[in-house]
């Protein structure tokens, strides 16, 4: 579908007609006596250009969220279902009670603040280790590892495809040796660590587990999160290696392994973040992410796992974008939707299985390279939305991230922003402070309805893997991102410093990473390959290939014979590299290339 700049349509398939609206006599009187004369005297004016998405067919101003969803002038009880007052338990529940709209904990943040978890990683493991110690010393409460592109794609630093990429977008990790350096001096039993790694997730996780073991940490006590969400890679971020089916099998291997051996570790972080960054609307982010969750549960059940054995450790990861109330509604709706799915669709019995627990990161895509200091304000607003939405942990972006990886100063301001919210603003004092707001509740309900409408569509396609193979979510995202780009181009959506309030600027100081990281990692690899037992590497990789070729089947309380995790752990202990282990799996599974959807 091709559209000119002046012919925008709302992008979301959320029902836009007001299903509840039953205007009271008082509201009618207000409309006639107060509103009408005001509008006659001074008509409403759109924010941004008076064209396209900002105009109703009758020429009056139209207001929409950043996702293109129309927003009304005023919300009243008429915008809520008729039985709202009578049956709050159906819509809201109390905090800590189904359907968890108001949060999964009865006391909100009063018992425990959100975890301030700043994502970072760059250059060599040595340099990143120093940054981690700095962040912890500054009051950060968890770590989050960013890996470089060769690691994400399962190549060693000395591979031809890694040229120019080593240590650029994250830290370069080639072998267990690098992981030992990365966490040297950091107690893994006491520090929760999140690792943003997907296709090679089980390999990096195995390295982490071995380092923990070397430190003497108890696997039953270590906690953290593996991103390990391959579906959103096919949909959005595109860092995939193998085709969907074997990729899903590797994910389910980690579910099974973690339920037995690392009960406090989240084996997956089902991520909407990247889906949003790739151009999704808030509703598309919510719907595709939660439906990815459904797909993982379906695959795990097919393996023979019991839903209550693994569901308590499924965690989620959302984006917090600029549109404040839309984001809060998205977060609140996510808890209710997951509760409904886990009870109605999967019949999970444990409360923990029904809890939507999520991490949030402020929207990298909303940061501007122009007047970058303005991003500090954007991040603060987005972080506030995440907190009012009840996030369990939060990463705040650094103001210079549209230009490069953050400098130490920028990373500190980002962390301080969270600390100001937590310790100065008072927003953590009460649970779900926006609960009962007519506007927020209406948006929350619409998010839920819109998400279930998407679920029906995705079910009809035969699930997310099939939908991905048909390019459905990819095309939805491409369409939304193009519509938004057009709206920005037409100045119908304003970005301060970019398409309005522009000034002349000089380039600012950034973190610059040169080509030396590749050289030093290559040197290290050469020494490692000379030092380790090649026979042991060959043997363990061979055993992994064999396991990978077999279909695992779960038995209660026992790990599947062909589960790849124990074999990967053996490879890692023999100091096989990320590239070698992924290559062994490439031998068995082949690689994936997507059809081109534009």
């Amino acid at each position, binding site marked *: 579908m091709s559209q000119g700049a002046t012919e925008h349509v709302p992008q979301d398939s959320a029902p836009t007609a007001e299903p509840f609206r039953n205007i009271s006599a008082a509201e009618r009187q207000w409309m006639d006596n107060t509103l009408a004369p005001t509008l006659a005297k001074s008509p409403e004016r759109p924010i941004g250009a008076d064209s396209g998405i900002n105009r109703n067919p009758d020429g009056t101003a139209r207001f929409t969220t950043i996702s293109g969803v129309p927003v009304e002038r005023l919300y009243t009880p008429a915008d809520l279902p008729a039985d709202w007052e009578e049956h709050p338990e159906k819509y809201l529940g109390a905090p800590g009670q189904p359907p968890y709209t108001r949060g999964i904990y009865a006391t909100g943040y009063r018992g425990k603040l959100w975890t301030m978890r700043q994502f970072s990683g760059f250059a060599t493991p040595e340099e990143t280790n120093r940054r981690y110690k700095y962040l912890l010393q500054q009051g950060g409460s968890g770590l989050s590892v960013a890996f470089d592109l060769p690691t994400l794609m399962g190549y060693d630093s000395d591979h031809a495809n890694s040229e120019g990429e080593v240590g650029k977008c994250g830290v370069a990790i080639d072998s267990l040796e690098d992981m030992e350096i990365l966490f040297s001096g950091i107690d893994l039993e006491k520090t929760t660590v999140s690792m943003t790694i997907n296709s090679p997730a089980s390999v990096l996780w195995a390295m982490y587990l071995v380092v923990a073991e070397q430190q003497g940490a108890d696997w039953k006590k270590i906690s953290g999160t593996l991103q390990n969400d391959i579906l959103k890679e096919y949909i959005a*971020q595109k860092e995939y290696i193998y085709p969907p089916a074997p990729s899903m099998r590797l994910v389910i291997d980690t579910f099974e392994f973690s339920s037995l051996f690392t009960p406090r570790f989240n084996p997956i972080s089902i991520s909407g973040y990247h889906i949003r960054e790739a151009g999704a609307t808030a509703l598309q982010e919510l719907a595709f992410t939660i439906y990815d969750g459904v797909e993982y549960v379906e695959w795990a059940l097919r393996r023979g796992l019991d839903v209550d054995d693994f569901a308590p450790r499924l965690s989620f990861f959302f984006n917090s974008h600029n549109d404040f109330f839309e984001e809060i509604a998205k977060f609140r709706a996510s808890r209710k939707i997951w509760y409904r799915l886990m009870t109605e669709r999967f019949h999970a019995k444990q409360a923990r299985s029904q809890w939507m627990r999520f991490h949030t990161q402020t929207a990298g895509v909303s940061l501007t390279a122009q007047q970058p200091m303005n991003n500090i304000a954007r991040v603060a607003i987005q972080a506030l939305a995440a907190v009012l939405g009840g996030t369990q942990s939060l990463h705040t972006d650094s103001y210079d991230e549209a230009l490069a990886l953050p400098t130490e100063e920028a990373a500190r301001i980002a962390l301080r922003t969270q600390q100001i919210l937590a310790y100065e603003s008072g927003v953590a004092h009460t649970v779900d402070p926006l609960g009962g707001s007519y506007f927020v509740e209406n948006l929350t309900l619409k998010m839920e309805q819109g998400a279930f409408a998407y679920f029906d569509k995705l079910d009809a396609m035969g699930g997310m893997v099939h939908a991905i193979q048909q390019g459905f979510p990819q095309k939805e995202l491409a369409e939304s*991102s193009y519509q938004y780009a057009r709206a920005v181009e037409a100045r119908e959506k304003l970005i301060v410093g970019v398409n309005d309030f522009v000034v002349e600027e000089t380039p600012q100081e950034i973190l610059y990473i040169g080509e030396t990281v590749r050289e030093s990692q290559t040197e290290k690899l050469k020494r490692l390959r000379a030092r380790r037992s090649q026979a042991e590497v060959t043997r363990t990789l061979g055993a992994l290939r064999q396991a990978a070729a077999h279909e695992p089947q779960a038995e209660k309380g026992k790990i599947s014979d062909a589960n790849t995790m124990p074999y990967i752990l053996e490879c890692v202990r023999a100091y096989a590299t990320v590239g070698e282990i992924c290559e062994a799996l490439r031998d068995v599974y082949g690689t994936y290339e*997507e059809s081109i959807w534009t």
Partner: protein
Amino acid sequence: MIIDSGVKPKNEFPIRVLVAKPGLDGHDRGAKVIARALRDAGMEVIYTGLRQTPEMIVNASIQEDVQCIGLSILSGAHNAIVPRLMALLKERGADDILVVLGGTIPAQDIDFLKQQGVAAIFGPGTPLETTVEFIRAHVKPRGLAA
């Protein structure tokens, strides 16, 4: 006075552009948006998909007889990719193809990349129209002898 004959001028030679995403990075939002914007502006656009090597990009550009290559690089790999691509274009006698670059490029790398022959670098926030106009103004017209 201009009289509209109702006959649109025949655009015999629409500008042909190859939009390419080299390197390991998979963030293709920008590449896809720009591909569509150029298409909406009347150009013929070939999008290569992800993880194209400089060799693949140069081969495709020659085969498709494009006048412009638009590279999208966000990962920081530009200093490795661009010189290889420019050298290959020269080697194949195709250095009349206009090369433009979009993405996250540190200011200190811009001079180097321009010396290599990149005609323009479009950073985050560049209006779509700026890129369209630049390509229109700088491509070598098709159908003319070199």
